[in-house]
């Protein structure tokens, strides 16, 4: 038995299976959280009846409803592309979880170039969105898809540049390495070692830029122009129904999960919490990470239900005029600090 577990392929398959089961389940929880939080922010109650108390089964009921629905494909659609697009989007978000460390050992594959991999895999989803927008044979979808493409170009750069500061500070691109670097004491006062995540080690600008760029990457308000219910009638999602729509929907929340996990790992210390032994971290690591992720997800939901939407050209101007110069300054500043200190 233990011999089997040590086999690389068996272990990998097991880990992938866990990811494939846990991520959609967590996404459902986030969907429910969004339903409830948005409702209470608007003086409503939100889901109430499904599943008995608090309507906890509402996301499941929605999912079941979507699965029962007819899978409509428009007549003029580019059928293979149309059908394949939701899978591309869902796969790209799931692929990010390969490198997210839930605890020192609980990680599918700790790549040396983890940061690069995560950002590359995450932005791959935009190709799926472009495919969906193009293949739907719908002008609204097309505009939505193209807006998503434009957004990718605008926001991928600040996203990557924001991370560079952390990478410089940690001296590694491995996710577990970055967490370990944050676990190292910053300084000691007498017997007490002070541990700080990178957010409090001078990466505030990097963190803010990362969060803004992340919202744009996830197409969440205030940057949800590719979807824009009130003008593009859900943009690239307009023609999707049934299971394929569910995949997009799940991918949106899985994307929130994955991007928040990256942000939590890079800036908030990941699975690490000061004062716990390495054994305890092994067990509590996933809980600690999930708590940090939940906090970020709450912020994303909070923004969505407070802010209006920007315009595409305004988003571009924010990205190019503000975020990229700021991110570059952040890199220079971090590099100087690294050399001097």
């Amino acid at each position: 038995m233990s011999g089997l577990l040590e086999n690389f392929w068996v272990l990998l398959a097991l880990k992938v299976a866990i990811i494939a089961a846990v991520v959609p389940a967590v996404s459902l929880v986030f969907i429910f959280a969004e339903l409830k939080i948005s409702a209470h922010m608007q003086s409503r109650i939100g889901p109430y009846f499904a599943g008995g108390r608090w309507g906890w089964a509402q996301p499941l009921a929605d999912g079941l409803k979507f699965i029962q629905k007819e899978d409509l494909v428009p007549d003029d659609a580019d059928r293979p592309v149309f059908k394949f697009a939701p899978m591309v989007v869902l796969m790209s978000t799931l692929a990010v979880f390969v490198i997210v460390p839930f605890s020192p050992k609980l990680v599918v594959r700790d790549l040396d170039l983890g940061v690069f991999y995560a950002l590359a895999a995450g932005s791959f989803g935009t190709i799926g969105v472009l495919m969906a927008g193009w293949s739907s044979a719908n002008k609204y979808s097309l505009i939505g898809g193209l807006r998503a493409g434009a957004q990718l170009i605008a926001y991928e750069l600040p996203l990557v540049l924001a991370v560079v500061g952390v990478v410089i500070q940690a001296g590694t691109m491995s996710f577990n390495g970055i967490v370990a670097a944050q676990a190292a004491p910053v300084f000691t006062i007498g017997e007490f070692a002070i541990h700080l995540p990178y957010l409090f080690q001078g990466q505030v600008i990097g963190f803010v830029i990362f969060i803004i760029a992340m919202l744009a990457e996830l197409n969440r308000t205030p940057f949800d122009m590719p979807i824009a219910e009130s003008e593009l009638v859900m943009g690239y999602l307009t023609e999707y129904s049934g299971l394929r729509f569910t995949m997009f929907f799940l991918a949106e929340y899985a994307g929130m999960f994955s991007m928040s996990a990256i942000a939590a790992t890079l800036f908030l210390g990941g699975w690490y919490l000061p004062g716990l032994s390495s054994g305890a971290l092994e067990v509590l690591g996933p809980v600690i990470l999930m708590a940090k992720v939940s906090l970020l997800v709450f912020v994303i939901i909070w923004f969505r239900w407070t802010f209006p939407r920007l315009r595409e050209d305004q988003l571009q101007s924010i990205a190019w005029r503000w975020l990229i110069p700021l991110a570059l300054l952040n890199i220079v500043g971090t590099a100087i600090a690294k050399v001097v200190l």
Partner: protein
Amino acid sequence: MMAPKIPGIGLAKGLWLTLKTLFQRPPTINYPREKETPVPRARGVIALDIEACTVCMLCARECPDWCIYIEGHKEMQPPSKPGGRPRSRATLDRFDIDYALCMYCGICVEVCPFDALFWSPEYEYSEGSISSMLHDKERLAEWLKTVPAPPALEAK
């Protein structure tokens, strides 16, 4: 005009407001499990007092939508005093209101000279088909017991 002084302060104020609301009790009512009592004057459904109606047709004539259908006949009634003349009295055969046509203006209630029509605030009588929105005189008479007392008036 309302230009915020510090960049981002406007965003923060909005976030604070939504966060505050998150922890307030929503003012919603859990319909259909709980129900609000409609105001006494609410124009929900028209109730008919069959006994008071004299088939004068005023309501049907004044109705802007022509949605009231009335038929009646005359009947001899025994004299009210012994030895008096027998009286003829108009009796209602049909009094239908087509609620699929009605626009709830209340003109019929107002013009009725014999106080046979009343507004009731009941509102739960939607139907699956348009044809069943036609209420006959028995159904209209049933609404009579839901007619509330008029509200007290504001002192002048």
